[in-house]
């Protein structure tokens, strides 16, 4: 068996039964998922309105918010906030990867560290991520031990336990958190009505990235916006459950910079946490996709990564299927949504497992069928289905 097959089979055996158990034990999650789909569709029917509402809400709570059209604009806005010669810690963000943020910030003279363990390993190996949730799922424990030993010069070997490996990275990253000037995170959901950013995590790296530095920048795709704070918490709950990590260790809410109301109950900012909060909302082709009745389903994806584990093409083809960070069935949709690349969709063999397990009930094979037709020149993007 190849290294990929060993690694992915271990991940499947750990993850797949776990998600079934969670959904069995907490049946309300399926109800929440249904409601979340409706909430997200509401935003997709009028994204401009919700972007405006989000920006106003963030400003109202003392933060700054920006809407950017593409990757260039996103890098420009963020690099103006960060500057150069800074120490930056990042929480895993697909959009940050999509816009090439880490490498760009490094290129303008910043020291940048990924703090999600999987993403950190990807950074050390200088490889693209292979799974939305577990970016280093393609690496076996043995390979990770070798990587850490070589890059961090620490005393681990192939026989080191999972726990020992995690402990070594913890030691290395804690120092980075403490000294960081800027923390950059993604967002699992953004509440339009309050301007709050919700992040789900297990490692504790996101709360440290978003609280220890004096500046917190959250970067999120348009599709992360949901109408209300309640919907945003719902998204975090559903995402964690379908990812197989329920209850999540932490759910973080950031509503503007840190504040306190302890002196005469007057709300004052900053307090102990960041002095500045910035939200960067990225379009990068998403709004155009939202106008197509079939393709817009892509934007309902909450990136739980469950479809990967059930897809025969991903299981066999793995890392090479899709444009990083967007691999797997959902990645084949996203590769078109943000890069307009139709090739990954061609690899869909319509097994349909992805649609069975998708929390948002996205008929992924149907979306990919449409992208195939666009790629084949059979229909043009924007054309409706055949004649009635």
């Amino acid at each position, binding site marked *: 068996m190849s290294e990929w097959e060993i690694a992915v089979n271990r991940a*499947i*055996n750990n993850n*797949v*039964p776990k998600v*079934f158990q969670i959904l069995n034990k907490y049946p309300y999650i399926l109800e929440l998922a249904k409601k979340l789909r409706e909430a997200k569709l509401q935003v997709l029917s009028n994204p401009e309105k919700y972007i405006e509402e989000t920006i106003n809400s963030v400003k109202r709570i003392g933060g700054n918010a920006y809407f950017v059209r593409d990757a260039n604009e996103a890098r420009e806005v963020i690099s103006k906030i960060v500057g150069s010669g800074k120490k930056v810690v990042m929480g895993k963000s697909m959009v940050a990867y999509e816009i090439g943020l880490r490498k760009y910030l490094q290129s303008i003279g910043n020291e940048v560290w990924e703090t999600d363990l999987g993403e950190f390993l990807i950074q050390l190996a200088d490889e693209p991520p292979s799974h939305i949730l577990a970016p280093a799922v393609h690496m076996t424990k043995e390979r990770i031990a070798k990587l850490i030993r070589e890059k961090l010069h620490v005393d681990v070997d192939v026989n080191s336990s999972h726990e020992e490996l995690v402990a070594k990275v913890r030691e290395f990253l804690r120092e980075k958190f403490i000294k960081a000037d800027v923390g950059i995170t993604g967002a699992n959901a953004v509440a339009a009505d309050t301007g709050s950013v919700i992040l789900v995590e297990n490692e504790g790296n996101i709360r440290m990235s978003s609280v220890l530095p004096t500046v917190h920048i959250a970067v999120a795709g348009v599709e992360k916006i949901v109408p209300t704070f309640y919907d945003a918490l719902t998204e975090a709950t559903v995402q964690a459950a379908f990812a197989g990590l329920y209850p999540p260790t932490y759910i973080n809410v950031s509503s503007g910079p840190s504040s306190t109301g302890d002196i005469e109950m007057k709300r004052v900012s900053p307090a102990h946490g960041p002095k500045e909060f910035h939200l960067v909302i990225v379009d990068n082709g998403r709004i155009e996709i939202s106008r197509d009745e079939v393709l817009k389903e892509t934007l309902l994806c909450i990136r739980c990564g469950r479809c990967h584990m*059930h*897809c*025969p*093409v991903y*299981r*066999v*083809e793995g890392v090479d299927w899709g444009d990083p960070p967007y691999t797997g069935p959902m990645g084949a949709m996203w590769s078109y949504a943000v890069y307009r690349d139709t090739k990954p*969709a*061609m*690899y869909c*063999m*319509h*097994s*349909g*497992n992805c*649609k*069975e*397990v998708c929390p948002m009930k996205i008929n992924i094979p149907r979306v990919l*069928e*449409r*992208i*195939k*037709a666009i*790629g*084949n*020149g*059979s*229909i043009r993007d924007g054309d409706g*289905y*055949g*004649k*009635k």
Partner: protein
Amino acid sequence: MLGKIILQNLEKHDFPYNIDKKICSGWANDLPKGGETILFTSCMHQTASLSDTFSRTIPLAEKVPSLSVFAKLIKPNKEQLERSYKVLRNIASLLKKNGVNFGYLYEEEPYSGAILLELGYLNEFGIHAERVTKFLKEKGVKRIITVDPHTHNALNRYNEFTKFDIEVVNYLELVKDAKIKTDVSFVIHDSCLYSRFLGLRDVYRQILTNAGGKIVEDLMVTSKEVSYCCGSPIKPVNHELGEKVAKSRVEQLKKLSENILVVCPMCYANLSKYHNKIYDLAEVVE
């Protein structure tokens, strides 16, 4: 480009590539021709063994159409053809035993267009669907009995492209009574289309159980959410990938039982390269 080549072949040969249509109808000689209810094979069982040659040629066909399998006359070997005939005769016999009357269009039977749909040639599929619909209406067809998932799925989609008011029913839905021929137990390799798109997953399980058959199930191998494809549909895009999927699927199934049961001719063609105890449902019940 490829969509256009296939579409042209459909116009010229009534099939995605050049075959002698007599091989499609060779299994049937005692069925009435035509009628309001017809059994519709779309020549899938009869030509499934050719899918390998077809998928290997596709990448070339786009570059040099004239040199490909698309232009030459090809046919399955005798043994493979005879087996497919036996499966079709058993299906017809099962239907008759269950009191279903039907006709058959013999060489005039059109192809469903499934390959266009599955490779993402939606516009071309729509054009083909219109032509087939017109033909079937001229023949007075009111009800179609399908015998494979790809044809069933394609016909199910016609309505998105043209006004299609012919009833489509699968033979599995009509067989209420059957008897098992053997006492071995089977692991079922589900057809993706039957299982996850057409809602027939429990129907063939019921047929097998009612017939006295024994089935081995396992969440990680045979459940609706975890069981997966035979690899066949990806072969025209990437032959090697399709083979890898088939091989890995057979390995999973064999852990549960040596006897693997399929309900789709494409699954049979693809998986049987890696195992010799693969049977179609219509081979094990009567």
